[in-house]
């Protein structure tokens, strides 16, 4: 069991989200950076979908009760276990009474803490993710607070090297680029925007504003104007959709997105790049790169390949450890 001593305001228990309830108006929720979430789980031998703790903009502090395995992955936050510096992505053992300190994040926006077997919270409608608006899922449907205790579902100790286990996450930005590049497809109203607006959207960076949370990020940049086409009828929207309300500044809908909306849509960020937005913080710059469906499909395959490599490498290491014992 792990006790929360200090935690930022919007930390929640998340897995890969609640699929299959769009028809009831229930959004997916789930980890904002699913890549880091999955990495933390894989390192512990967990199912990728096991519930982790999503911690936005640390610092945070935890105390372990009982010897147990844990993993961390996501934004670099100078994590320390009883003062010992840990790598940015790490799985290992904590002894009874040890304190885990997550410092300020030097870059990125979220870090994931995984426990063996996942965090033990009830599975509701097929998921353990916190549904903040509807106030269910996760730990009592709410954000975590100091004094909360999280219990692992698994009780066996995973095979881990004494110095712990790590892996490399893909870089958030392309080399030499100050902005975070997001690959996106043109969406429904793209062609209604003026040629200058289209040009600006695909070439100039947009800054993440402080009005940004798990529901969506409001961006600030070149104003996007379009031909007046009247009010749209409400229609489905999904995480990654880039809407442009009347003011001309885009909004990207994210994990806690509504399931329907009515603003014009200029683009849709492809699924394998959504984790990058999850690691973007206010002040960061986002650049949208136009891709087609063939490129989107290729990006999905590359993402699948990355997880396959991680699983293969971790399995090989665990086999090796097993043969030593």
């Amino acid at each position, binding site marked *: 069991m792990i006790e929360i001593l200090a935690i930022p305001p919007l930390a929640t228990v998340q897995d890969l989200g609640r*699929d*299959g*309830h*769009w*028809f*009831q*108006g*229930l*959004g997916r929720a789930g980890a904002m950076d699913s890549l880091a979430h999955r990495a933390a789980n894989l390192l512990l031998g967990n199912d990728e979908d096991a519930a982790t703790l999503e911690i936005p903009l640390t610092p945070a502090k935890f105390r372990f009760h009982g010897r147990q395995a844990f993993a961390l992955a996501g934004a670099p936050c100078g994590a320390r276990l009883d003062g010992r510096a840990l790598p940015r992505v790490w799985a290992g053992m904590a002894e009874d009474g040890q304190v885990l300190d997550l410092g300020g994040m030097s870059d990125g926006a979220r870090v994931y803490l995984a426990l063996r077997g996942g965090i033990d919270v009830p599975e*509701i*409608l097929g998921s353990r993710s916190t*549904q903040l*608006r*509807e*106030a*269910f*899922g996760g730990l009592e449907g709410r954000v975590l607070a100091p004094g909360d205790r999280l219990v692992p579902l698994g009780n066996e100790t995973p095979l881990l090297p004494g110095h712990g286990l790590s892996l490399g996450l893909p870089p958030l930005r392309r080399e030499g680029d100050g902005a975070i590049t997001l690959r996106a*497809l*043109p*969406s*429904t109203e793209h062609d209604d925007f003026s040629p200058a607006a289209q040009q600006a959207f695909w070439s100039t960076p947009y800054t993440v504003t402080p009005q940004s949370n798990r529901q969506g990020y409001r961006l600030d940049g070149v104003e996007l104007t379009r031909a007046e086409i009247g*009010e749209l*009828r*409400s*229609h*489905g*929207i*999904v*995480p*990654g*959709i880039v809407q442009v309300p009347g003011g001309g500044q885009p909004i990207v809908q994210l994990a806690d997105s*509504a*399931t*329907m*909306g009515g603003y014009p*849509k200029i683009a*849709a960020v*492809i*699924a*394998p790049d959504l984790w990058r937005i999850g690691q973007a913080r206010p002040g960061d710059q986002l650049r949208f790169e136009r891709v087609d*469906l*063939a490129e*989107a*499909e290729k*990006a*999905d395959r590359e993402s699948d390949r990355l997880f396959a490599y991680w699983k293969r490498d971790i399995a090989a290491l665990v086999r090796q450890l097993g043969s030593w014992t």
Partner: protein
Amino acid sequence: MPETRTSLIGSRALLFQADCPFDLVHQQRFWALAEEAAGWPGVREAVPGMTNLTLLLDRVPTNIDRLSADLAKLWESGVRKEVDGRLLEIEIAYGGTGGPHLADVAELTGQSIDEVVRLHTAPEYTVYAVGSHAGYCYLGGLDPRLETPRRKVPLTRLPGGSLSVAGLQTGVSASTGPSGWNTIGSADVAFFDPARRPAALLGPGDRIRFKPVEVVA
């Protein structure tokens, strides 16, 4: 302009729209489309919007032209799904703290407060679509005399159970959230309960009648 159009709203999500009037007969065609498309291979969910349809897919659609053609063909067939939905009567306290914009709506529409309440409680509304937030019902059937613009300054925290109008739409929020609509009353109804099966109280084709239990000017 072509009558139908398929566009991308995500790398694994499509929006199908048709150039059609906004009424029950056309909405029934989208219900039929949703029911049919839900069974297609690779379709995870098919969800009706307001005279449109969203498809959530397992993978990136490399066959979007075929999907688009299949949807267009089905649309052109004119097939409709009629739903013999249940009727829910919802008690509403109009005005007061739960309906702070009732007087605004009266002023904007040029009706008296009693007339606003009468016009709003007269029709039987049909649930066209469920979405936005869990259990929220988009309703068809608002009297055009109650048409109002959205508010310039949205409320950041409108409580669940709030009855609002905007444009030609009306509905009762299912949980606390932001809203740019004009709130004219409140109800005590659990539109979504994760412990219930189905969790959403109402689905497309169900009907609602509002019953005034109180009117506070």
